[in-house]
């Protein structure tokens, strides 16, 4: 179980008085499937980075199975089984797809990494020896990023907008993968997404806006609620 307790985050050195995350309280149960959604700039990626240890909270605590992991480094959290697929993955000169996958598998069983390439719709033969550099297209890079998190032995996996930049066919494949994960129930999955098909898999949907958690509930009726809740939308409709 992962618990975030009154987490706030104000980037260091930022003069901006407004924190990016404010008083976040969140309880994520083992092997559940969560979807985080909300407007651009609302703080979704920042929340994911807080979980991974990339951002250190200004205040608040993070507990994993009741143990305080607030001060653990990225590496230590990774070794505890927390994983994060970046919204915008970095590129590396000279590091091959095969190498990246073997690193994400902890250097064991290199061959198995390619199954995951196949799952995200990339032919291992064509991609294993490619470098993860500027020559990859945006969608290819993104799919490799997803494959690398799928290939890890995680207990908590966070995917940051896995659908972004991905073509229709690959997106269908991807939702199939997430469906299987959701049915297997052997990993806590957190997907930041704007896609209805992904919402449908969620045990709970978490709405993040303006740095706060605005709601966390089962998916039924979630969409209508969100739409009606949005004041600006109502205003617009009234004006029409």
């Amino acid at each position: 179980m992962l618990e975030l307790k009154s987490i706030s985050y104000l980037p260091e050195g930022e003069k901006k008085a407004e924190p990016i995350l404010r008083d976040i309280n969140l309880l994520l149960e083992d092997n559940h499937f969560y979807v985080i959604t909300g407007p651009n700039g609302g703080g979704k990626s920042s929340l994911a980075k807080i979980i991974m240890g990339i951002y250190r909270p200004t205040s608040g605590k993070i507990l994993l199975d009741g143990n305080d992991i607030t001060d653990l480094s990225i590496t230590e959290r990774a070794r505890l089984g927390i994983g994060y697929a970046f919204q915008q993955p970095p590129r590396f000169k000279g590091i091959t797809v095969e190498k990246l996958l073997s690193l994400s598998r902890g250097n064991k069983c290199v061959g198995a990494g390619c199954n995951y390439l196949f799952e995200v719709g990339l032919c291992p033969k064509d991609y294993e020896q490619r470098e993860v550099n500027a020559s990859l297209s945006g969608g290819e890079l993104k799919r490799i990023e997803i494959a690398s998190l799928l290939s890890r032995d995680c207990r908590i996996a966070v995917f940051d907008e896995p659908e972004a930049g991905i073509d229709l066919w690959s997106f269908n494949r991807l939702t199939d993968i997430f469906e299987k994960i959701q049915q297997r129930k052997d990993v806590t999955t957190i997907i930041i997404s704007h896609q209805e098909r992904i919402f449908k898999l969620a045990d709970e949907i978490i709405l993040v806006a303006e740095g706060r958690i605005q709601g966390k509930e089962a998916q039924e009726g979630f969409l209508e609620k969100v739409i009606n809740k949005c004041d600006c939308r109502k205003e617009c409709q009234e004006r029409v």
Partner: protein
Amino acid sequence: MNSLDKDLLIKIADLHEVPQGAYNIRKNGEGVERHSTANIEIKPKADKPGIDIIVKPGTRGESVHIPVIITAEGLEDLVYNTFYIGDHADVLIVAGCGIHNPGKTKAQHNGVHKFLLGKGAHIRYVEKHYGEGEGTGERILNPQTFLELDEEASAELEMVQIRGVDSTKRETKATVGREAHLLITEKMLTHGQQLAESEMTVELTGENAAVQIISRSVAQEKSKQTFYPRVTGFTKCRGHVQCDAIIMDQATVRAIPEITAHHADAQLIHEAAIGRIAGEQLIKLMTLGLSEKEAEETILQGFMK
């Protein structure tokens, strides 16, 4: 040869035993073993130290190994090697210099290599430089490489210097003829107080001549590196210079590429970038469970591969 010699040979030429094909092994300023084949003749120069390597036209799939090792201090070795590559020959040339300096005074090797490639000839030239030794004596390597590529000839040069060489001044000059291609890949890692300078001058003289220069370097600690890649196009030709450096600690890197076109159909490009390892890259690898140090090593290893 003793075990130290053998160790150096492994480091610079991946040689675990006597090489196949033609070879010449030079140790402490003297040729110690030499072997010619039916197609590749190696003979000492009459007028100065060094050898002529003559590859018969049409020779294919053979290799020449010419490693140099220095295991004594206070030695200043100067050698001239000339390669005559016959028309349409295709050979692998493995050179390299390993210095084990046991003492306080400097050990230096200046290798002057000249390559004359005939029509349609192809070479792959691999050169590794390596230095070690318990003494405080400096290890200095100043290679000079000259190439002339005749019509449709092609050459791939791979020059690598990773750690251990205190001072290096490298000079490479080439003229590239009609439909000929030259690819130079240079990789360098310096650390400590090391100095490295590399100057390249390539002249594209024949129609559709092409050159690609790729320089990848890592400068650590207080080392200093300078690169001067220069390409001049005299006719319809293509040239691409790419200098990419990772800078760390208190190091200094200067990259001064120069491209000159004397013809409206000369297409010349240069790119030069110097920067530290991107924080995003380190973070990404750390999210896979690597420590910061391991992440850094993985990135450098890939970059220099």
